[in-house]
């Protein structure tokens, strides 16, 4: 008789979820189990949004905010009014390993988190720069812009952290003390973007310029109540099973390709560049 290590009972473990690389559901769940110690601290007390692809990333998927019917009674949820859905939504909270494994068993491929926690939903604990290259602008262009953002923040004495989006962009975050509101962090991020747009030909900072070809958009709009960011170490819905991976700034300088960070490589990464992120909450001066 096996010892009970989890409350979750697994299903359809041999189902192929990433057909290009023949990754099974068992491998997928194993990834989330292995990455859990690094991932869980980011999820705690945040109402999550999931993208579920029960039949694999090449088949139909859907966003899921509402906790599904028939979930086990030990899964914690919170009922909140969703501004986008215009109704009360029963959000899932993932505060423990069992819930994460349960989510993986539901084939929640991507986990998206809000930038604030439940006890102060209007006061974010991260300021977030979503650096998004529009082709033919590339990841390399996004890296250049991310490094410029870092430089700007360094000048302000702010320590910033960077991760790949898992697709073509980069995410830069500042862990902050929960004093300013979303409106204020959004204005702060927007301001930095506008400064960069003046200095660098390739950068655009206004929402209307989002899809301008060969530009890199420094997106400030995600710093909003009700918006979410793909959480660090979340898998992405890409054929190559890429991961939104926290990096050292030196990795960005070296232009390591984001395609190298996948379901296979990320669990064995020795270093954890975001290890001290929660110990470095900084005061964000907003005018």
């Amino acid at each position, binding site marked *: *008789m*096996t*010892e*009970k*290590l*989890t409350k979750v*009972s*697994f299903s359809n*473990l*041999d189902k192929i979820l990433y057909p290009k690389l023949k990754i*099974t559901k*068992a491998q997928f*769940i*194993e990834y989330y*189990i*292995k990455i*859990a*110690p690094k991932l*869980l601290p980011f999820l705690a007390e945040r109402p999550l949004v999931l993208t579920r692809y029960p039949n694999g990333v090449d088949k139909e998927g859907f966003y899921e905010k509402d906790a599904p019917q028939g979930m086990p009674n030990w899964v914690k949820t919170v009922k909140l009014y969703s501004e986008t859905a215009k109704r009360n939504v029963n959000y899932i909270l993932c505060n423990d*390993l069992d819930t994460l*494994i349960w989510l993986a068993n539901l084939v929640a491929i991507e986990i998206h988190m809000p930038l604030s926690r439940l006890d102060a939903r209007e006061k974010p604990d991260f300021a977030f720069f979503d650096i998004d290259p529009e082709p033919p602008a590339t990841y390399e262009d996004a890296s250049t812009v991310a490094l410029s953002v870092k430089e700007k923040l360094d000048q302000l004495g702010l320590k910033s952290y960077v991760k790949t989006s898992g697709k073509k962009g980069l995410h830069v975050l500042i862990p902050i003390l929960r004093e300013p509101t979303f409106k204020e962090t959004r204005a702060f991020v927007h301001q930095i973007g506008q400064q960069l747009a003046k200095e660098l030909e390739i950068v655009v900072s206004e929402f209307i310029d989002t899809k301008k070809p060969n530009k890199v958009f420094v997106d400030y709009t995600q710093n909003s109540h009700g918006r979410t960011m793909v959480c660090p170490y979340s898998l992405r819905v890409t054929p190559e099973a890429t991961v939104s991976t926290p990096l050292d700034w030196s990795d960005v300088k070296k232009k390591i390709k984001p395609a190298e960070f996948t379901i296979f490589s990320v669990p064995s990464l020795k270093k954890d560049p975001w290890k001290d992120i929660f110990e470095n909450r900084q005061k964000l001066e907003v005018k």
Partner: protein
Amino acid sequence: MEKKTNRAKKQEVVETEKTVENEEKASAPRRPIWTGSITIGLINVPVKLYAMIYDRGVRFHFLHKLDNQPLRYQKVCTKDEKIVPWPEVVKGYEVSKNEFVIFGKEELEAAKPESDKRIRIDKFVDYFSVDPVYFSSSYVLMPDKNNDAYSLLLQSLEKMGKAGAGRITLRTKEYPVLVHAYKGALVLTTLRYSYDVADLSGFEELKELKAPEKAELELAKKIITDLSGEFDITAYKDTYRQKVEKTIKKRLKGEAIIVEKPPKEEVKGLMVALRETLKQLEKK
């Protein structure tokens, strides 16, 4: 660990008892399996069709005697005994022994009748003139939107002891049907085609039957009259099921088989990862 097992068993007993109780009464289904309308000439009666027949006999699962694991079926090639995966399966119609006409999915699809959401009634017959050997399965019809037409049809069939005879297409099959009144509702009964019921003229035994003596016949009729009564289906109990259920209850208190999750290779891999993660989380 021993304790855990016992608790699990107890819970199972409680659950089983509950389901046994529930099974005594068949509850009303919640969702219609078909919606459309009964059409009689130009008259339309919109209806929803619900299941009303259940098969509640005793069901067993086949297990592997050596480890009590559930078994499943595989399709096996009769020539090389190899398991054949679904994508390699086609349908064949046996025209003579071991000679098949192969059908493609499209060909079969084209032959299927289209569902036109109608129960077409062509005529009315005396309900009791249709022999039950033709009855296949019954469904209950509920009024959809319009009560009046449904009520009118129900009342008139009830008063006259008549049933509407006609056709319906359910999923991909067309059936002859009867619509009749049963306990204050319209019930649709699908019928077997005539070719599905044996032609009894083939039995030699029937041809050799002698006509009985008049006195014998009178006596037999008297016996039948004496034993006549109202039919009550609830007087008949499934004693086999009752006995099996009794045994199950007894066994659950003692030594029931608890099926363990098959310790597949994949699960083993997950457990290794899980142990490592739990160790790391503990350190934190």
